[in-house]
C-alpha cells in the first residue's frame, strides 16, 4: 500500500507560472489536506476537503486553489506563483474529518519560486 503519493517531489518555477501539485491516496480516506511547511512557522493548513466534492479554506488559502473530484485525488494549484510560495508542501489524509482522526502524510513537494 503506497498511502499518499505526492508529485513532483521537487520543482523550481519562475514567478508568474501556473503550477499544480498532485496528491493521490489509496486508503479511501474521506478527508484530505494541504499544508505548507516553513522554517519557524511549522505547518500551516492551506485548504482541506472533508469529503469528495467539498473543499474549504484553511489558515493560508490565498494564491492557492484545490479541487476534489473524487476520493483519491486532491490537487493543489498555484495560479500565478510568487516567491513567497517557496515552501515544502505536504498533502495529508484522514479516515474521517474531525478531531479524532490520525493524519497520514505524503513525503512532501519542495517548491522554489524564483
Amino acid at each position, binding site marked *: 500500500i503506497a498511502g*499518499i503519493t505526492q508529485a513532483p517531489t521537487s520543482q523550481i518555477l519562475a514567478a508568474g507560472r501556473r503550477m499544480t501539485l498532485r496528491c493521490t491516496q489509496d486508503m479511501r480516506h474521506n478527508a484530505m*489536506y494541504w*499544508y505548507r511547511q516553513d522554517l*519557524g*512557522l*511549522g*505547518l*500551516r*493548513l492551506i485548504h*482541506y476537503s*472533508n469529503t469528495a466534492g467539498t473543499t*474549504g479554506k*484553511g489558515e493560508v488559502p490565498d494564491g492557492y486553489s484545490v479541487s476534489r473530484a473524487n476520493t483519491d485525488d486532491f490537487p493543489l494549484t498555484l495560479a500565478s506563483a510568487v516567491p513567497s510560495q517557496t515552501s515544502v508542501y*505536504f498533502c*495529508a489524509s484522514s479516515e474521517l*474529518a*474531525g*478531531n*479524532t*482522526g*490520525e*493524519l497520514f*502524510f*505524503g*513525503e*512532501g513537494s519542495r517548491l522554489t519560486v524564483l
Partner: protein
Amino acid sequence: AQSVTQLDSHVSVSEGTPVLLRCNYSSSYSPSLFWYVQHPNKGLQLLLKYTSAATLVKGINGFEAEFKKSETSFHLTKPSAHMSDAAEYFCFSGGYNKLIFGAGTRLAVHP
C-alpha cells in the same frame, strides 16, 4: 481561539538522558492532541494521540505524553534518548476544520 504553542524551538540532550518536549494548548473545548515526528526530508509520522480516554498516553519508540487539563499542557517525554530520536517534533491539536500544528521542536541527541 484554538492554538498550540511549543515552548522550545530547539532541545539538545545527551544519548541515554531523558527527553522533555513541551506543548501547551488553548481550546474552548476538550481537544484531541497529537504528537508527530518528522525525520529529515520525510513526511510526518504519528507518535501518539490523546482523545479524552486515559490522560497518560504511550506511543511508539518509547515516547509518552500526559494530558494535564489544569495546566493546558501535553508534554512529550522519553526516559532515555537514542541517537535515532534526533528529528523535529510537532504538537498538533485536532478539531473539525481546525487542525492546528505547533511551530515544531528540533531535538538534537549527542553521543
